[in-house]
């Protein structure tokens, strides 16, 4: 018997299909679930929206570190000149923290508000779409990382999609919140 080995294309397709399934599942849930219209977690903030605006900002900071540390590990940046032994784990930790922080935010978006299908509500529509894309691309990225053997361009491209989706999410939520309710809006 010979052990089945996955081809580069096979790994990529697996990641893309899984990511697509996650994105579609989030969109379908947000569309068919009757939105609760209630506040959820707010911690020490005055309301859930404020909590979400600041948590998404923190997630964006972790994502910026993800971008920087990934570019350094791929040799696109040269600082620090000598990579510390913990650098790769710090990259993983920042991504894990970002994802963990996104869970209560996404829960409120999906459970209390839902997917905005009306394209004339451009901010809400784009935010809904980017939220689904973020989790889909994130699932694809994690699958690629864990599979070892995808195409060399796969991780940078899908990582870039994750980062771009997150920036779009921040612009259409946190920046909108700070612009409309004042800064810091706590």
């Amino acid at each position, binding site marked *: 018997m010979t052990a089945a080995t996955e081809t580069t294309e096979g790994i990529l397709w697996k990641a893309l299909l899984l990511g697509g399934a996650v994105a579609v599942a989030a969109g379908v849930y947000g569309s068919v679930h009757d939105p*609760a*219209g209630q506040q*959820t977690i707010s911690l020490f903030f005055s309301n859930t*929206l404020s909590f979400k605006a600041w948590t998404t900002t923190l997630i964006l900071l972790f994502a910026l570190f993800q971008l920087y540390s990934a570019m350094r590990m791929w040799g696109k940046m040269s600082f620090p000149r000598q990579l510390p032994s*913990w650098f790769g*784990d710090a990259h*993983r*930790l920042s991504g*894990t923290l970002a994802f963990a922080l996104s869970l209560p935010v996404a829960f409120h978006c999906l*459970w209390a508000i839902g997917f905005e299908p009306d394209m004339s509500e451009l901010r809400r529509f784009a935010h809904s779409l980017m939220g689904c894309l973020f989790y889909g691309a994130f699932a694809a990225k994690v699958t690629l990382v864990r599979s070892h053997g995808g195409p060399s361009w796969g991780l940078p491209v899908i990582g870039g999609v994750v980062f771009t989706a997150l920036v779009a999410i921040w612009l259409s939520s946190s920046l909108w919140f700070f612009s409309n309710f004042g800064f810091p809006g706590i």
Partner: protein
Amino acid sequence: MFKRIVDGFQVLVALAAAVTVVLLVTVSPTVAEVDTPDVSAGAELFASNCSGCHGPEGEGGLGPALAGGLESFEAVEDVARFVSSGVPGRMPGFETRMTPDQVNAVAQFIWTDLAGR
């Protein structure tokens, strides 16, 4: 050591993600219990059901501002109907989550206390 901590943390976050998915499909909205449908009960219902989108003072948020507004409504009964039915894709309807008395109470609170009509 650091690697082990990150590995362990990733397992915990994966579990948290699974719990989040379970909560998404199992948690039902809560409705504040009130005995009498008056304006103070409406305030309580508004705080627990509407303020998440319309703001604690009805100043708006994800949903439009209610304070000092509601020009498109002619009577409190219109507000009650709107609260009851909602708008697909934009605002949940509350006819299955509140009794008619509760809907009337929150509509009365929105109409008088927030919109000043």
